[in-house]
């Protein structure tokens, strides 16, 4: 009896697994679901699940239902590789990840090596938010596709706007101590020096990633430096706590950020009472005059208590479906080939293109600021009453930076 039970226990999940693999297209979502990055990772997961439902309601991808498999990597590269292997063993052929370029670098490397060793069982890696430029330059891979504008593109857009603001005189840089933060500070320094040589960099700080609970000492330093503007790539709690500390100390500067809209960000901005003093560069905001994305925004807000922070995730899922339709297959190699050079009407309107040379997606980029709304801004953030207002739009061609990528194709 006992042996029979054991055999059944072993066999049943196998049958189940085999049956499931026939019907579903699994996407392994590898991001922090615990630890300091959890609040961000959880919002990402729900966004992807929402998008999977959208695709499934239309009959799935090539007749297959999409299933998101959540895998917790604790924002840790090693842990991510274990989770990626686990996902692949469970039949996942598409991985997606976004939080942390250190993780993205490790994953891209892992997937490339895995595909070399396992021809016929290739895995694709869709990167929706890790923006270290190196991933589509020196370390580019055929198996990696990035939907978020990389850090250089964002900084190019941000500094193009900053150079038109004469009030900016003293800039302070504060970033997280890892590859992405490092890239933000170097490009910020280089681009500001080229575009506005009169701007002084009065501080350049790196702090540990997701480990600081009280930013008061850093704020004291910013204050002492006499900065009027702070540029930061901080995300998650590192942004919210930075703003909270600056509100406590009464620091009044303008903030130019990548991720002010992330979980906890708008709440902290409202508490700091920085009305239209915090700017964000990104591929979209809820308050754009674009009916279909506003419909989507209403739907996601009705279901969850957050706004859409990842228009890029929408582009990723919709393009996956489009590429599979074009290739008439969900085979990763064919999907990858269909994605190369693919043009696409992006979520917030306008033309986007997945550049073949480096697998970087180019799309219109928006600069926006958070504060009091007018009738043109129907959506607020985190129930603060404040919403994003469009400040500047950069069209796709103006965002296309050159790449050094020399891609090996299968």
């Amino acid at each position, binding site marked *: 009896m006992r042996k029979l039970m054991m055999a059944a226990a072993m066999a049943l999940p196998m049958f189940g697994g085999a049956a499931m693999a026939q019907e579903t297209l699994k996407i392994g979502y590898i991001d922090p679901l615990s630890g300091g990055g959890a609040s961000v990772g959880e919002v990402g997961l729900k966004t992807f699940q929402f998008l999977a439902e959208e695709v499934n309601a239309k009959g799935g991808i090539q007749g297959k239902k999409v299933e998101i498999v959540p895998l917790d990597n604790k924002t840790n590269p090693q842990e991510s590789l274990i989770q990626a292997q686990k996902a692949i063993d469970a039949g996942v052929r598409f991985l997606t990840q976004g939080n942390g370029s250190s993780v993205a670098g490790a994953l891209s490397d892992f997937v490339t090596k895995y595909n070399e060793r396992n021809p016929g069982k290739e895995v694709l890696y869709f990167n929706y938010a890790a923006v270290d430029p190196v991933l589509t330059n020196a370390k580019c891979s055929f198996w990696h596709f990035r939907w978020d504008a990389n850090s250089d593109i964002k900084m190019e857009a941000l500094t193009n706007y900053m150079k038109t603001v004469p009030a900016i005189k003293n800039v302070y840089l504060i970033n997280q101590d890892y590859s992405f933060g490092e890239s933000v500070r170097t490009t910020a320094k280089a681009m500001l020096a080229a575009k506005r040589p009169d701007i002084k960099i009065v501080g350049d700080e790196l702090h540990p990633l997701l480990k600081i609970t009280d930013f008061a000492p850093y704020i004291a330093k910013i204050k002492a430096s006499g900065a009027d503007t702070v540029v930061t790539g901080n995300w998650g*709690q590192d942004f919210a706590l930075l703003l909270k500390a600056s509100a406590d100390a009464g620091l009044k500067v303008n903030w130019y950020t990548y991720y002010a809209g992330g979980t906890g960000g708008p709440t902290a901005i409202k508490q700091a009472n920085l009305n239209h003093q915090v700017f964000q560069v990104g591929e979209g905001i809820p308050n754009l005059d674009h009916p279909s994305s506003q419909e989507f925004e209403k739907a996601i807000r009705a279901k969850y208590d957050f706004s859409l922070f990842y228009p890029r995730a929408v582009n990723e899922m919709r393009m996956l479906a489009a590429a599979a339709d074009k290739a008439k297959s969900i085979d990763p190699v064919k999907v990858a080939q269909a994605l190369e050079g693919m043009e696409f009407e992006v979520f917030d309107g306008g033309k986007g293109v997945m550049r073949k040379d480096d697998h970087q997606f180019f799309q219109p980029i928006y600069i926006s600021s958070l504060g009091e709304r007018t009738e043109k801004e129907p959506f607020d953030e985190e129930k603060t009453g404040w919403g994003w207002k469009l400040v500047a739009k950069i069209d796709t061609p103006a965002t296309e930076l050159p790449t050094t990528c020399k891609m090996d194709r299968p």
Partner: protein
Amino acid sequence: MLELIVISTLNGVLFGMLLFLMASGLTVIFSMLGVLNFAHASFYMLGAFFGFQISRWLGFWPALLIAPLLAGAIGAGVERYGLRRVHRNGHVAELLFTFGLAFVIEEVVQIIWGKSPVDFRVPALLDFPAFTIFSTNYPAYKMFMLLVSIAIFIGLLIVLKKTRIGLIVQAALTHPHMVGHLGHNVGRIFMLVFGVGTALAAVAGVIAGPALVTQSNMAGLLGPILFVVVVVGGLGSLPGAFVASLLIGLVQTFAVSMNGSLSGAFGPLSPAYASTWLADIWGVTVAQIAPIMPYVLLVLILILRPMGLLGTRDT
């Protein structure tokens, strides 16, 4: 420069006092029970979440009273029904027990309140800048934090040095078995001390929750540094924990404000080494390594003065 020194000192003292608020409970528990409670920071987190929930229903001030009582009751329960049984199997079992408990508490908190930070606000009564120095505001709430820490320090010191219970605690520090032989109900005192210790952690939680962030990983962020405080101060020494908290608060805050690096002190590295690992070490600033300073201090203290700054017992 003066501005930075004054403000860094203030920030350091504020952070140090918060550390002390948490470490006081840990050190009291250690001095009495000889248990290094790995779950201590978890009780701090429980305090913050209870405080958040109760302040939703009844307001902040009742929360400041009820949340520590609740957490203390849970702590006492843990001692009575968990630790006391595990105690028979020795210290390693106790350590493992509290270690496991920390994970259980974190998981439970995540199930109930989720992983995102909760919106725990500073009470309106204290939501104003207490004073402004060099055009930097100091929130009244942080001053309140400071006062509570000092009050708890003095209160605990009086209880430990001047009362009968304190006498027993003191005796237990050096002669735990003798205290039992003298006819004291050691079990009940242990339960009480564990309860009070965890309640103190919860007080820190309720107070720190609105000032920092109330999130399910807050225990993990502050847990390790508590042990540094207790070891540096001297295991079981309350004044030691007080001095060590201030020291660590100041060291960390001042380190952040310094931009010096080896390349600043000795000039830039010769270009021949520019692309080697040496370049990273050469260019790193004191500010960047600030967060590991307390652990450097821990290592140094363990090597040079194992009993801690004000400790009396070798461990």
